[in-house]
């Protein structure tokens, strides 16, 4: 499997999120190819879930569309395994703990490592919950990417950084995904505080980064950025598959340019 932290060497990577199976798994495959061709550095793929409580309306709707056409975690992993040879950037699965628990933590770790998936993000599984998942992922060499938020205590930052691998996901504000308000007012101080504990772990900043203007405001502080809702919205505006893919391409180009111009 491809290495996540490698992607942070010598550049500030663009990490993008799409919902697996939205609007179909075939389309997910095509979007993956387009994103990597346009220079996306890491691709997060959402596991659709009926009750995504850390997500705002855009990703909720995307998740719903995926479920309506019959996407399941099994099918999603099988798809990624199928196209493994064509995927050139690390793939990270992002989803809710019930999906993993229901699949079986051991089986999940085994199947995703065989599918070449590099990392996992579970926003509703805090570091101190009893879950076998951490050990299972470690045994398979899959990164477990953990989240910190602007209100995370120093004691927890230390604990989270110690158990996190790949990169540390810094949530930009107190809110759900797609929350387009301004990032946390003391973003610089927040990320500096995180860095006191994060050692070699690169910091990815995400939630509410919705375009070049926002990128300009924040790009100085993290080591990479994560964009989900805004990309999904851009894709959704397309009326045909071609339009959707072109929109994805154009969106990524704009963001990549902003990262380069303002870094």
């Amino acid at each position: 499997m491809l290495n996540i932290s490698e992607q942070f060497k010598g550049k500030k990577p663009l990490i993008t999120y799409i919902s697996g199976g939205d609007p179909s798994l075939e389309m997910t495959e095509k979007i993956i190819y387009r994103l990597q061709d346009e220079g996306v550095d890491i691709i997060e793929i959402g596991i659709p879930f009926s009750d995504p409580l850390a997500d705002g309306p855009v990703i909720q709707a995307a998740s719903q569309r995926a479920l309506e056409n019959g996407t399941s975690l099994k099918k999603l992993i099988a798809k990624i395994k199928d196209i493994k040879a064509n995927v050139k950037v690390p793939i990270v699965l992002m989803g809710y703990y019930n999906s993993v628990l229901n699949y079986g933590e051991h089986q999940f770790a085994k199947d995703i490592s065989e599918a070449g998936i590099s990392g996992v993000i579970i926003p509703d599984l805090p570091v101190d919950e009893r879950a076998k998942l951490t050990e299972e992922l470690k045994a398979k060499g899959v990164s477990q990417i953990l989240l910190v938020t602007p209100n995370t205590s120093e004691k927890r930052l230390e604990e989270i950084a110690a158990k996190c691998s790949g990169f540390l996901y810094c949530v930009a504000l107190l809110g759900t995904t797609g929350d387009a308000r301004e990032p946390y007012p003391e973003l610089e101080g927040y990320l500096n505080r995180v860095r006191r504990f994060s050692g070699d772990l690169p910091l990815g900043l995400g939630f509410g980064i919705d375009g070049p203007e926002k990128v300009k405001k924040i790009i100085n502080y993290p080591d990479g950025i994560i964009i989900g809702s805004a990309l999904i919205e851009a894709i959704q505006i397309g009326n045909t598959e071609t339009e959707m893919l072109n929109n994805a391409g154009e969106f990524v180009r704009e963001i990549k340019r902003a990262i380069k111009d303002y870094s």
Partner: protein
Amino acid sequence: MSRGYFNEFGGRFVPETLIPALDELEEVYLELKEDPDFKAQLKSLLADYSGRPTSLYYAEQLSSHYGGAKIYLKREDLNHTGAHKINNTLGQILLAVKMGKKRIIAETGAGQHGVATATVAARFNLDCQVYMGTEDIERQALNVYKMEMLGAEVIPVTSGTQTLKDATNEAIRDWVTNVEDTHYIIGSVVGPHPYPMMVRDFQRIIGDETREQIMKKEGRLPDYILACVGGGSNAMGIFYPFVEDKEVNLVGIEASGSGIESGKHAATLSAGRVGVLHGSKSYLLQDEDGQIIPAYSISAGLDYPGVGPEHSYLKTIERVEYQSATDMEAVNAFRLLSEKEGIIPALESSHALSYLEKLAPELDSTAIIVVNLSGRGDKDINNFKKIREAEADA
């Protein structure tokens, strides 16, 4: 038992943003719980504002109708706002004030918890917003008017199944976004730690009073205690003080809607599997992919695909027996209590009452059953049309 768990059930499966708020809540709660001033303030509010103790009423007519055991009703319906929900909201509003929060949010299904929350928010002068599924807004219209009258804003939830599950998702999202100035008053023994423990502690007054009252009236503990189970707060409240008394049989009654075989039900403990929803690990209704299956019940307060983690624990250790009642069985019990005793019960509580039909005739006249009458049925009068239709279909 490690922190926040009842054996394998419970925990705090929430976004990291909420961890500091849950830590603070737990700390403040554990501190206040032992604080004499807090205890005195809560006690006086429960007595003078809500009207506690609620009575333990010997339902003579109902008992003789079944011709078996002596049936007592724990009259939580006599509380201010008409249900047990206020026991919890009074406790939590005091915590919110102590923590300096400016704003209260809540989720509601039947609207009873929403009304109980709007009531205490009015009393303590805090802003209040209540999330409620649009389906429930329709079937519990009276409670929507009440909440608005009390100065709360009812926010319609149109996502998912537009019922309690989705209202809870929205409330959690709101809390993630406004965690610094907002306290989330969860309405049942569900959610992340410390809620299941804390809400149970606020509701255990039901069981504590019942014990004292039945000892006074009968000189012994009851043989059976029955309570309906949605999230499980009225049941935990009446069961908890009796858990160690092995001679007292505890029976929780879930809603089986159109029947468990029909797939349209809310019988989480009877027909669900272990998973994680709304911050805790417990039984829940889910499909083979782990997607939550929408619950169904005629009663909005029981229409929930999850259940409090302590109930899952009490089920696995076989201390509590979990049964279920269909819409029709509940409607029959609703009518029967109204006609025999002149008490109109909530449809939720009617599920517990309906189990008497199976149990009471089997017992002799020396046996004692206590039913937790968790709420009154005013809010359900609007449902009468639906109820008549259900009867016509039968």
